[in-house]
């Protein structure tokens, strides 16, 4: 399938307040550090995406809320922008792990 035929979708990301770590809204409504567990919104789910953004904006635990355009490639979520790939996986050289969030596996609002 050519690049043009891949459906572009969106995920929602933010930085966790205390650590500054990148987190992603999951299907379960938690904010997780793993981008691969992000909830993917199709174009048809735009109003739901807006609702989730509004909900997150009311949180005191999240900052710098953004949506990220992604595609599914070989079963994995892949952002269209290099910036978001690096943001999800950490600095590339020397390779460093992403920032860790506070105790617990996710940010709960």
């Amino acid at each position, binding site marked *: 399938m050519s690049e043009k035929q891949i459906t572009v979708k969106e995920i929602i990301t933010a*930085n966790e*307040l*205390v*650590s*500054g*770590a*990148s987190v992603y809204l999951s299907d379960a409504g938690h904010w997780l550090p793993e981008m691969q567990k992000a909830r993917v919104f199709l174009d048809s789910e735009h109003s739901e995406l807006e609702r989730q953004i509004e909900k997150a904006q009311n949180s*005191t635990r999240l*900052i*710098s809320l953004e949506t990220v355009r992604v595609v599914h490639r070989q079963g994995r979520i892949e952002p*269209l*922008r*290099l*910036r978001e*790939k*690096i*943001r999800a996986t*950490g*600095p*590339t*050289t*020397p390779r*460093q792990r*992403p*920032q860790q969030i506070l105790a617990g596996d996710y940010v709960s609002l």
Partner: protein
Amino acid sequence: MYRYDQFDARFVAERVAQFRDQVARRLSGELSEEQFRPLRLMNGLYLQLHAYMLRVAVPYGTLSATQLHKLADIARIYDRGYAHFTTRQNVQFNWPRLDDVPDILELLAGVQMHAIQTSGNCIRNITTDQFAGAAKDEIVDPRPVAEIIRQWSSLHPEFSFLPRKFKIAITGAPNDRAAIKFHDIGLMAQQNEKGEIGWVVYVGGGMGRTPMIAKPLNDFVAHKDLLAYLESVLRVYNRFGRRDNKYKARIKILVHEEGLETLREQIDSEFSLLCGGDLTLPEAELERIEAYFAPPPFKESNARFNLARLWASDGELARFVEHNCHAHARDGYTSVTISLKPIGGVPGDASAEQMDVVADLAEKFSFGELRVSHAQNLVLPHVAISEVAEVFQVLKKAGLGEANIDQITDIIACPGLDFCALANARSIPLAQDISKRFGAVARQEEIGELKIKISGCINACGHHHVGHIGILGVEKKGTEPDHHWRGGERRSGDRGDRRAGSGRERGFGRH
């Protein structure tokens, strides 16, 4: 070195306490991010791609061994065991947690450091020649005047919310190592026909998306009038600088749009009101500040490098002396630049262990003094020539012995897309690739002096406009085609850069 007076100590301590309270209120939800953001930025705390970043001021690039030990401690305890030295002679920590920052600031205050005015639309850290107070070609040590400007500009009530950030650089030597013509105001020492020392004032320089070389505004401002003159420039800028468009808000745009003569008339008019007033610097106060920067107790020595003999006996040391040692004003001494550009390394990064080694060397061999250069290296300003070989051995053992100052591998690079939220492309991997490719000693010697500067976006933190070769990273369809520039040269200061065309495609995951 300057030591805080009671006022300095009190305002830094008060600021730490204020910020501790602000962080607590943010964490409790009492403050929103919208309310908190300007407060954290006033204390040098940015949010980057992966985490917060704390930028700590190193006033005019001068550090004590004690301060560098403390920075190493902070890197170990609160960060990931390293720190990054910047092109504005500051130091950055890439991974602090918000709730740790008040403790970090308290530790910094304990060694007379802070992060105030390292962000925001205010007068930023005053930068100067990394060899200030040591260089053989110096007319006057610029640090006392830099310190006076620091005191005047710190928490200045009129200039805390300028149209845009404002950067001042000062050099006491005719060879400009502080890139003064690429600052909002550049000051260069000058001796007039009466033998008095004053300052040539340049205005309106800068890089970023609209690179401009500063224009000469005044060819001689006496010490005693300097603050009044700077206040006049800042007042005119504060009044007429554009606040409607952040991309046109720097003073360089005001100079460009209004013209230097119009601006000079306004500044002269303001200066006529301020000259001879409260801002006149008493000679006694200048002398009091100068006393803090008195030369250290040098030993009498007539030791000199004999490079021919050194090349015959120890080529490695000879190369280090040739590239990393700078002529000192005092016989028998030299200034040693410690390269933070190991072959294939990250430009400007130093581990906590390396910082401790350098601080120990400063204590033992350089009267406890250190400098940060705008080329992202460290300097031991006063090393006895007879002790350079010992210093070199310690540096080599710590992975800091690279003899490459001003060579092709001494690359200036911003953090780029690996860290920076504004960047479009990575700078660090490109610098590493170039360093590895040309890192062989013979190849570097063949190429000779060559300054490569890399910025990951148009904001030009990597000074790409003024490198012999400048590289600007841009983003195109998720990849990083680099744009190369060539022909800039900060030292001559009057040659613009020229675009040389697009570079290679760089796919994600190659490194």
